[in-house]
């Protein structure tokens, strides 16, 4: 999952990025509205954390312009907590709204819920065959036996399972699982897929040559 954080307070930006990377997200950051809008329009993020008070272009402006081109889920962060502000945020096209100061666990839970809803998943548990994924606990089981996964392996599995039945291109995987600082070696993805197959069974992930990967639902 790849997240964009647009926040002008450097300390807050740093801690948010740290927390999200710890959770296995690929994180890009922007310190003002213009840069943020540029990134948001050029990459298909899975979610955007958007501060309202921003230099150059404020959060409302970013959201309004972004909605012209993309439906990326947006979680607004603001210190203004009047209901008028919330209504305005939600009406402009924000998907959720969080008032500063917030608890990080709540922010992460809302982010997970946002991504889950976007892929049409209602609960935190996804089951395909004998493999089950718990997106809240970030763990996977096969025939009720726990499977040890690295952070990258987990996000790869999560992404494929959230898009079950669809062919996910390598480009899409690169875009969603790696941030702009990652050194994207072309065979890195193949290594992760091969490791997942070892742990979950070879037939679980099918390769569509020339297209990408797929988990059949």
């Amino acid at each position, binding site marked *: 999952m790849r997240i964009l954080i647009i926040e002008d*307070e450097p300390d807050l930006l740093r*801690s948010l990025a740290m927390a999200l990377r710890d959770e296995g997200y690929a994180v890009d950051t922007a310190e003002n509205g213009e840069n943020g809008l540029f990134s948001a329009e050029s990459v298909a993020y899975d979610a955007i954390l958007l501060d309202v*008070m921003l230099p150059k272009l404020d959060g409302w402006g970013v959201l309004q312009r972004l909605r012209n081109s993309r439906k990326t889920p947006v979680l607004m962060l603001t210190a203004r907590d009047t209901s008028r502000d919330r209504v305005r945020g939600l009406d402009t096209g924000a998907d959720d709204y969080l008032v500063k100061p917030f608890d990080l666990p709540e922010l992460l839970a809302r982010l997970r819920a946002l991504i889950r809803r976007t892929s049409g998943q209602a609960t935190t548990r996804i089951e395909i065959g004998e493999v089950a994924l718990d997106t809240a606990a970030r763990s996977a089981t096969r025939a009720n036996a726990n499977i040890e996964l690295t952070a990258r392996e987990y996000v790869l599995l999560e992404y494929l399972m959230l898009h079950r039945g669809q062919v996910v291109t390598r480009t899409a995987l690169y875009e969603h699982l790696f941030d702009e600082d990652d050194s994207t070696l072309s065979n890195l993805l193949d290594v992760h897929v091969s490791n997942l197959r070892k742990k979950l069974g070879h037939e679980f992930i099918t390769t569509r040559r020339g297209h990408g990967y797929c988990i059949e639902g």
Partner: protein
Amino acid sequence: MVFHSIRWRLQLWHGLILFAVLTGFGFTAYRLQHANELYRVDQELQHRLGPVLEALRRPTNAERGGLAGPGGPDGARAGPSGSGGPRRPGDPNRPGEPRPVEGAFGDRGRRGPPPRESAGEFPYPREFRLGPNRAVLFESDANSFYYVVWLRDGRELSRSTTATSNVSRPDHVSGSRPVPTIRMRGTNRELYQFTPPGDCILVGRSLAPELANLRQLALVLSGLGCAVLVLGLAGGWWLATRAIRPIHDISAAAATIAGGDFSHRINTDNTDNELGQLAAVLNSTFARLEGAFARQQRFTADASHELRTPIAVILSQTQATLARERNSTEYRETLEACQRAAQRMRRLTESLLALARLDAGHETMKWNRFDLSHTARDAIELLRPLAEDRHITIQCELPSTECFGDADRLAQVITNLVSNAILHNKKDGEVRVSIRRENDSALLVVTDTGPGIPAEDRPRIFERFYRTDKSRTATTGGIGLGLAICKAIVDAHDGSLDVSSPAGSGATFTVRLAAIPCEA
């Protein structure tokens, strides 16, 4: 409770006054009519007394036939000489109380033929003969008059057929003048007169028809009075309601506003009366209150907003860092971020406290005579390192100028203005601080060579939390209260703080304070 309402009180007083006026009118009308009726009856009685008096006389010698009484020749004249006109209407008229009536009958020229009846029975010669043209006056009909004649010894000489048997002879007060006197006997009005010898003549009439008329009049008057009272009360109620309605509107509007809806206003369509003016005054008061309330609300919201950001930093930093083991560099970074956030909160709370004190007027200003140039020089010295960091030169022109005020607070003003000038300057820029005297004022001018302040922002830069850059200025670390505090301090000195920024070439802040005149 009802009588605490203005409307009810108005109505009560209105009703009372109307009632008093109507009662007075009705009573007076009744009394007037009553007096008129009695006057008319009295007139008629007097008309009849004369003929009766004339009918009583001493028989002529020829008629008498030797029957000379010991009483002799007195009483030759059958009455006092009457004089004066009719009784004036409006005289007090007390029924039942005998009182004299000034002469009412003077017609004694015409005399009917002398009566011939039973003259011989009387101990002294008296006869009573009422001519037929006079007797008509006492014929029996609805308003039948009656007469009774008594001799001086109390015996009844004559009585009309219309007189009832219970008519009694009035008491003769000896020595009283022989004038006609009115008395009331039950519902009968009677006029009597004693002749000088002591004979008594009485004419009377029942007042029953007049009393019936008066009762009817009383009924009509009270009926009319009640109707007018009811109409008056209804009209008064309508008037009071009309007069009270704007008060109701005002009180309803005030209640709405007291309930928190500060945008509500009193409807002032009828502004041409006193209540309309009151409503206009209240509306302008409400508008000012709304403005003050909105400013206060915005200030509180801004203050809490400013506090939320550093708290969010501390919370997210600590939560993110504590989520797992970190190396010492990461811990250090987290602690530094927390420290920056805490410093920011400290600056903010100090500024808020300073403003709150200046607002409340509790801040005890330490009023002293001091030299503005010393204060400015000290403040600038403290800022030199900051200026050197940013390669800014500070030019000073500080002649000694004596002022009266709180030197510490004014030093804060100078520090704020000069550090603003340093922070909002171009690279290798210049800050010029000068003091000069203008009439009775000392002017401290701080000029920078920065980008200046856009015209649309200039009127608002002294507002609390107003920033020309709408976002937090993370780079300069300002919280948007510095100029507001400067303004509050200068205002507390009865001075002025102004800004000018000629098209994009730096900003000039001018503090004007009252100076102590140079000693000659």
